[in-house]
Every structure is written in C-alpha cells, then in structure tokens.
C-alpha cells in the first residue's frame, strides 16, 4: 500500500486531506509541524509527502528541502495564496507539484496520482505511432503540431491501443484495462471516448487513425 505523509498545522485541513486520501485507498500518517514530520519520517518509509507552506517553526520550504535531500521522495506543497510570490515561485517551480487552497479532494487525488505515476516511470517511457509520440511519464502527446494534453481516460485508451499497433483490442479488454473491472458505465462511454479521440487525432496527428473492427473492437493504424 502507498503511504503518504500529510503535514499541516491547520487541523481541519489536515483531517480533510488525510480523510480523503484514506477513503481512496492510501495509508496516511499525519504531522502537525515540521519537527513531527521529520520524526515520523525516521520511523516509517513514506512514498509521498504533502506539506503546507505556512507553518510555524520549520516551514514548508525548509521541510521540503530536508525531505528531498534525506529521503528522495516526491513532495506536493500546499499554499494558501493564489498569488505566488517570487521566493515561492522559484521553489514551487522546482517542486514536484503544488496545490492552492482551497482545493477539492478530486484535485488533490488527481495530483497525487499524477506524481506517483511519474515516479513509477523513472526513465523516459514513450510510445510512437506515426507522427505521434505518447509520453507515458508526463502524460503528454507530441506531434509536429506541438504538444497536447488529453483527458486521462482518453490518454490511457490511446496508450493501450498504441502499445500494440494494428492489434485489435476488444471492447471488454479496453474497458477492463482503462476503466477497471468495477466499471459501472454503459456501452456509450467507450463510444464517446473513441469518438472524441478520433476528433482530437484528426487535428493533432492526422496520420494516426483508430479503426473500428466491426463486432470485435478497435485498433490503431498509422500511415507510413
């Protein structure tokens, strides 16, 4: 199980963060200040730290520095200010990610997942199809048309198809791989995603096409 350390001197915020993470299947340990956080880190191994910037004593910046140098784990900073000042900016630019309060739990989970994903692929990990490059680490698409971010599910669908070019994936296989076994949606969902993906590819990498194989499923083809 993935273990996350949450550090915030605001107890309401700490409870909120920890609660949301626990509900989504993470193990969470908490600390109310920098000293406590460092003590916790000595006792247990942690995969990711979520650290509030404004804390008395050891503040978020200092704590992040120490976590980085001593433990080499990713850190997400929480900042109260929308308008990020110079000193913070340099720091945040170098941090793994940051979140501006107030945020919804969805956003927190999204960023946690994204970071853990990045740390799962330490080397550059890309797939190519025609003019399209799929970056599995940053979840970005690249083509001569530039750079593209597409929604997560669409990305995963595309990456699945591109992992075996010209191989026909059945609808069931796609649903299982992208949405998981406990998928509750209907048949339409996959149709909608395929349709959107086609429109996006038409504009972004026109040489790459998703072909419907009637009664079976889909495959990815690229003009050579």
């Amino acid at each position: 199980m993935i273990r996350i350390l949450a550090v915030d001197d605001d107890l309401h915020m700490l409870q909120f963060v920890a609660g949301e993470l626990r509900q989504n299947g993470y193990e969470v340990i908490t600390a109310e200040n920098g000293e406590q956080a460092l003590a916790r880190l000595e006792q247990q191994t942690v995969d990711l730290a979520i650290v509030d910037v404004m804390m008395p004593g050891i503040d978020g910046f200092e704590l992040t520095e120490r976590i980085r140098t001593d433990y080499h784990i990713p850190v997400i900073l929480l900042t109260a200010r929308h308008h990020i000042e110079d000193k913070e900016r340099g720091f945040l630019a170098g941090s793994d990610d940051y979140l501006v309060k107030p945020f919804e739990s969805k956003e927190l989970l999204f960023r946690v997942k994204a970071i853990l994903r990045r740390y799962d692929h330490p080397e550059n990990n890309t797939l190519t199809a025609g003019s399209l490059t799929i970056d599995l680490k940053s979840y970005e698409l690249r083509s001569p048309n530039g750079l593209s971010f597409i929604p997560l599910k669409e990305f995963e669908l595309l990456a699945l198809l591109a992992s075996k070019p010209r191989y026909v994936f059945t609808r069931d296989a796609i649903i299982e791989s992208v949405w998981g076994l406990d998928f509750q949606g209907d048949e339409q969902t996959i149709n909608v995603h395929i349709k959107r993906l086609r429109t996006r590819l038409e504009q972004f990498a026109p040489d790459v096409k998703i072909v419907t194989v009637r009664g079976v499923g889909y495959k990815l083809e690229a003009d050579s």
Partner: protein
Amino acid sequence: MSLYVKFIWFTFLTMLISSAISFFAMNTLYHQFLKEDNNDKNLAIAESFAGHLNSLPPDQVESTLEVLGDAGYQLYLTDGSDVSRFGGEFRDETIAQEDVQHVLGGDIFNGIRDFPRQTFVTGFFANELTNSIGVPVTLGGESYALFLRPDIELLFQELHLLFGGLAVGIVLLSFLGMLLVARLLIQPITKLTEATEKMATETFDVPLAIDRRDEIGRLADQFLLMRSRIEQSTVKRKEFVHNVSHDIQSPLHTIQSYLGLLEKPGISDSDKQHYADIIREETARLSLLTTQLLTLASVDKETPEALETVALHEQLHATLSHLRYAFDDKELALSAQLTPAYAQGNAVLLQTVWENLLTNAVKYSEQGGSVDVSLTQSENHIRVTVRDYGIGMTEDETKHAFERFYRADQARTRGQKGSGLGLSIAKEIIELHGGRIELDSAPGAGTTVTVILPASSSV
C-alpha cells in the same frame, strides 16, 4: 503670519535696508572722491572772492560781503579776535585757533577736503566751520581770514522738498504696488487652497477660474487635472466597492438560504446532495473572488519594473501542466504549439494572465471539448492565443468583457464560477507590459483571446 503681512514686512525691510546701504555707499563715495572736487571748486570761488575783496576800497567791503552772503554763501571773517558773519551763521563754529592763525599768515585752509570722515554724518551737508574753505584777505591794510562754504540750506531748499517728496512717493507707491501684486498672487492661491480643502471632503465641483500663464496658472491647470483624475478614481473606487460588496453578498445569501434548506427535516439524499453542491459552488465563487481581489491589489502594487526575461514557452508549459486537473475535470483536450519566445516582464504577473485566460477557456468550454494554445514570435511581437470552442459571446458582450465585474450574460453563466475580474486583470497586466489583448468571439463558436507582447531582444 499670512502672506499679505509677510509681503508688507518684506517690502518695508527691503526699503529700510536698501536705504541704509545706499546712504553708506554715497557717503563713502563723497569722502573718497567728491570731497576733493568740492573743496577745489569752493577754493576757486573763495580765491576769486578774495582777489576781488583785496582790490576793493575799504568802504565797499562790507556791502560786497553782504551781497555775497545774500547770494548763498556763508562767510566768516576774522582777524584773530573779532568775527563778522555774512549769509547766516555756521551751526558749529569751533575751529582750531592754529588753523585761523595759519590763514592769517597767508595759508589756505582746505576744510572741506580735510573734513573728517564719519559714519553717520554726510560730509557734504555738515554746516560746520571746519567744513569750509579759508583764504587770507587784506582789507584796508589789515590781514583777515575769510572762511566760506555754500549755504546748502538756502541753495537746495526746494531740491530738498523735491527729493523728499520723491522719496515719500516712491515708498508709498511701492507699498501700494506690493499690496496689489500680493493680492494678485495670493488670491488664486487662496482659491486653490479652498478647492483643496473641499477635496478632502470629496467635493470636486468647486469652480476654479484661474486663467494665468505663469507658474500659478500652471499649478492651477495641474490641480484641475489632478482633481479630475482623483474624482474619476473615486467614482471608480466607489463603483468597485459596490460591485465587490454585491458579489460577496449574493453568494453569502445563497449559502444562507441553502443551509436553511439543509436543516429542514426529511429532505431526500439527492436534494441534500444538490444543496451541498450549490453551497460548494458559491463558496468556490467567493474564494475565487477574494483571490482575484488579492491579485488585483498586487497588480496595482507591482510594476514591470521588476523586469526579468521570461521564457514564455516554459512558463506556459508549466501553467498548462499545473492546470491539467481543471482540463481533465471537464474532459477537455488541450493542444499547444509553443515556439520558444522570451519577453521582458514580471513573471508573476504574466503567469496570472495565462492562468486567467486558461481558466476562462475551461469555464466556457463544453464538456469534452478542446482548447488550443499557441505561442509564436515574430521579429517585434510575441503572440499568444488561447482558443476555446465553447459558448462564446455576442458582440455586445465582447465589448464589455474587459470591464471589471462584467460577466457575459448573467442569466446564462449563472452558476459558472467566475469573479468577473479575470479578463480585466489580464488586460491591466498586459498593458503594463506594453502589449495589448484582443477578443474574438461568436456565440456558439467559441472565443479566441490574443495577447500581443513586445518581443525581447535579449535571449
């Protein structure tokens, strides 16, 4: 002390001091240069008198001396013991017996030349025997000493009056003139002061009829300009506060009402969820509004003077990555063409612009839509476009889009979280950087925002 009193004092003091300086200067001039000339002039006259008297028969001497006295000379004739005076007496007749004896012995007494220099006495006017010319004369075989000097009082009586009148006239008229000038100078200042005092109570309509071409005129012009600017900004500020208050109040009211609904017994779970969603939306709106207000405050505070070279392609990429959550939430795809471009500016402020434009694009896009971002650099300009394919705006809405608190079509976007400040903040920041921002939109077709910034030469 009012300016009037000061003016009068200054005038008075100026006259006093300049008179004193002139007096000492002229006195010095007399003693230094004029005394000698005056002495020689009177010596010539005295010698001519003496020559004439010497040749006169004794019975005519007395009458001649009287004529000379009447003609304007003060004469003092002595043989060493007896004295006779013609043409009035000297005010001070002290003279050294030695000097008299010298003249009796045939010498000349150069009293005017040798008259001692004194600070507060004008040598020219001193009616003293020592301030005269003494020449020897022989009358009826006897030696006499004749001392003379022109009777200044007699000769210059009218001149005294004339000069006195002139001096008094100059003084009085100067005072009057100064009062007039002071009045002319002080009046507009008084007016300006009154207008300024009124301004402190936010009264901006005090008429100010000052039409002058001098420094005071310029001051008045600048004052009027400043006053109208302050008036404008005051009006704007009040409007702003009004808008902000309204925008804070209305979500609060909604929250209160829905909290009331939530407390009612026996509401269904779906209703509960619905109410909670509304409350969440409204708090999100409030939170956004306050952060935007903070941004606005810092835009007003910060200037692009905190100049640095900003790698826009990197900054945009980072911003896009950071906003990925918002894109994903609405299942939007984003394509970006970012060619390297560098601008001079304040990185914090520019980042705010990109965030505002992108969150707007997300906000007005349909679920599953897409947003295109491009960054290109030509020789002189950097162009950033953010295009969405969302609900778009009418021509009229486009026109007002940059106004603070304007939100395109209140009814349609109700429930969209937005502060109505994003675009106006973006515009302010871009203009601060010497660039411009344009909107191109059509209902149903989406919106394209174009930012044009001057290109930086240094890379």
